[in-house]
C-alpha cells in the first residue's frame, strides 16, 4: 500500500489501491439489486448432491430417519435452504423423522420454525400438514457434541433420557420413545439413514463417533465442503455442499435424476435402475437457492474483477518503474 495522495499516483498505483469503502459499497449493491429480479441460471448437479438425493429417495416410505441439525440463524442462507429442501422431500415421501441438536441450544427452535414454514406452504398447496408426535419428533439439544454423539452411538434411547412430548391426541406429555415415530427404535442401526445438517465441525465429530454404525448423509456449508469431501463417499454416502448443493437438490426435485442420463443403468430386463430417480415436477421445489444463486454470480464476478484490476495495476506499475 503506497501512502502518497491519490492525485499523485500513477494509474497502476491507483488500480492497486482502490479504497476499501468503495469495494464494499459495490459489493452491497451487487448483492442487493439482483434479489428483486427473477433470473434463471442453468445448472448441472454434481455427483455428491445426486447421491444425496438418491439416498433420501431410496428410504422406504413410512420409515423413520434420524436428523442431527446444528445450524442457527447465522447460517440461514445456506443451512436454511438445505434443511427446508430436505423437509420438502421427506414430507412428500411420508418419511417420519426424529431431529436432535448436538451442542447448539438454539438449533431445536430454529428447526421447529423452519418445519412450520414448510408445513404452511404444504397447507397452502392443499397437502396434509406434518404433525409432531405422529410424523416427527424433536429430541431437543444435547450439550457437547463429542459426548452427545458418543452416547447416541452407544444407545439412542438412553442418550435422550426423560424426553417427553404431548401426543397429537392431546393429554399429558409422554416419553417420545413411545411415539409412532420412535417406537421400537433403540440403536442407531434401527434407523435406515442419519442426515446431519450442520454449519459447524459437528459434521466431523459425527463421523468420528458414529463410525459406520449407521448410513450417514450430510448437508454442510460451502466452507466445510472441501474437508467433508474427504469422507465422501466412504463415510458419508451423500453430500450437499452450500448454495450450489441446495440448487442441485432443487433442480433434482424438479427433474429427478434424469433417466435420459447416459450414465443410468438398465438391469437385465431393460428396466432403468441404479441412479435413475424420479422428482416432483410441478410441485413447489424452488426455494432459497433459486432466489440467491443468480445473485451469487454478481458477487463472484466482482471478486474476480477486483483481483484482476489489482494484478493489472501491479504490471502497469512495474512497467512505469521500468521506464
Amino acid at each position, binding site marked *: 500500500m503506497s501512502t502518497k495522495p491519490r492525485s499523485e499516483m500513477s494509474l497502476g498505483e491507483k488500480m492497486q489501491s482502490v479504497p*476499501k469503502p468503495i469495494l464494499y459499497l459495490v459489493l452491497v449493491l451487487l448483492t442487493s439489486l439482483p434479489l428483486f429480479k427473477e433470473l434463471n441460471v442453468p445448472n448441472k448437479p454434481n455427483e455428491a448432491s445426486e447421491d444425496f438425493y438418491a439416498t433420501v429417495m431410496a428410504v422406504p416410505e413410512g420409515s423413520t430417519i434420524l436428523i442431527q441439525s446444528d445450524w442457527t440463524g*447465522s447460517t440461514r442462507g445456506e443451512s436454511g435452504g438445505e434443511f427446508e429442501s430436505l423437509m420438502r422431500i421427506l414430507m412428500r415421501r411420508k418419511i417420519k423423522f426424529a431431529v436432535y441438536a448436538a*451442542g447448539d441450544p438454539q438449533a431445536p427452535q430454529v428447526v421447529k420454525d423452519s418445519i412450520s414454514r414448510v408445513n404452511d406452504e404444504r397447507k397452502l398447496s392443499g397437502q396434509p400438514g406434518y404433525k409432531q408426535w405422529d410424523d416427527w419428533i424433536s429430541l431437543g439439544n444435547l450439550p*457437547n*457434541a463429542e459426548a452427545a454423539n458418543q452416547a447416541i452411538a452407544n*444407545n439412542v*434411547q*438412553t442418550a435422550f*433420557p*426423560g424426553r417427553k412430548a404431548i401426543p397429537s391426541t392431546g393429554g399429558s406429555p409422554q416419553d417420545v420413545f413411545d411415539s409412532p415415530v420412535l417406537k421400537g427404535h*433403540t*440403536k*442407531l*442401526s434401527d434407523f435406515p439413514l442419519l442426515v446431519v445438517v450442520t454449519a*459447524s*465441525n459437528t459434521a466431523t465429530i459425527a463421523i468420528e463417533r458414529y*463410525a*459406520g*454404525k449407521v448410513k450417514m448423509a450430510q448437508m454442510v456449508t460451502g*466452507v*466445510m465442503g*472441501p*474437508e467433508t469431501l474427504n469422507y465422501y463417499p466412504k463415510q458419508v454416502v451423500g453430500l450437499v455442499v452450500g448454495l450450489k448443493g441446495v440448487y442441485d437438490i432443487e433442480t433434482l426435485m424438479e427433474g429427478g435424476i434424469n433417466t435420459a442420463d447416459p450414465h443410468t443403468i438398465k438391469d437385465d430386463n431393460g428396466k432403468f435402475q441404479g441412479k435413475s430417480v424420479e422428482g416432483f415436477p410441478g410441485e413447489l421445489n424452488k426455494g432459497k437457492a433459486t432466489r440467491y444463486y443468480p445473485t451469487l454470480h454478481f458477487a463472484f464476478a466482482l471478486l474476480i474483477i477486483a483481483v484482476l484490476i489489482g494484478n493489472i495495476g501491479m504490471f502497469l506499475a512495474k512497467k512505469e518503474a521500468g521506464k
Partner: protein
Amino acid sequence: MYSSLPPPLFANLWLGNQYRHTGWFGIVFVLTMVAFVLMNIRRAKTGRNLYIRRIAGLNAIDEAIGRATEMGKPVLMVPGLSANLNAIVMQALNIFAHVTRIAAKFSNPILVCCNDAAIFTVAQEVIRDVYQEQGIPESFDPDSVRFISDRQFAFAAGVSGIILREQTAATFFLGEFFAESLIFAETANSIGAIQIASSTQITQTPFFIAACDYVLIGDEFYAASAYLTRQPILVGSLVGQDWSKLLVIVSIMVGIGLNSFQRINTKYDKTWKDGQEVDAPEHTRKASETFTYILLNPQTNANDADIPAIKLRPEDKRPELPLNERVTKTDAEAPK
C-alpha cells in the same frame, strides 16, 4: 461383503469375536503410533539431542514482540475457539507462554482473549506461572487474561473491537479457528499489526495466508512448542509423530503396491458363503476383494446380531436377569 470375508481373525478371543467391530488392525496401528511417541520421549530424555528443521513463522515471534515493545502497544493472543478445553488449546497456550515470557522480559503489555470458562481458567494459571517464573509476579495483571464470550460471533465482535481500540501491534491467532478467522485477520491487518496465525481447521488456512504475515500450516502448529522450547519431552514426541507419519507413508505405499498387484490378477480362490467354503467365480479382483479392503473394513456395528460372522452361538446365549433385577433404560444413567 460378509460373504467374501475370510474366517474372522482373533476369532475366539475371549467371548466370540468382539474385536471384529473395531477391527484388530486399527487398534494395532494406533498402539504402534503411541509406542513410537513414548519411545522417542524416552530417547530424548536420555539426553540424545534430536534435530528439528527450521519453521519460518516461529522465528518471527521475537521480531513481532520487539516491534510491539518499540510502539509500546500490547500483544494480543487468542488460543482459538475450541468448544471446550482440549489439547489444541493447551498447545496454543504453551506457545503463548513462550511469547509471554519474552514480552515479560521487555515488560510489554499482553492480552489473552478466551471464549470458554475452562480455557480462561487454564490461561490465567499458565500466564501467571510465566510471570512468577520470571520473578515478577507483581507485574502480572489478572485482567490481561479475559473471558470475552462463549458465543462465536459475539467473541469475534468483541476481539475485533479490542484490536481496533487498543491498536495492538502484534497479534497471535493460534489454535482452532473457524469462520471468524478472517474477521480477526483483516481487522488486525487494517491497523497494520504483525500477525502470526495458524488454524488446525485446514479450511481456514488459505484466509490466514491471504491476510497474515506468518502462517503455521497444519501440524507446524504442534511442532512449534518443541521448536521454541527444545524441551526433551516435546522434541521426543515430535520425533515420535514423524515416525508415525512415516508409518502412515509406508503403509500407504505398501497398501497401494498390494492393491495394484491384486487388482491385475485374476481371482480363483474360495469365498465364504453362509458359513462354508465354495469356489468363487473367476474374474479380476474387485476393489472389495483386495486384502487391504478386507483388513480395513471390519464389521463396524457391534450391536448388529444379524451378521452370521458375529451372531452369538447357542452356547454363547446369555442367562437372563431375574425379573425383579431387570433395569429400565434409565438405569443406564446410574453412576456405577
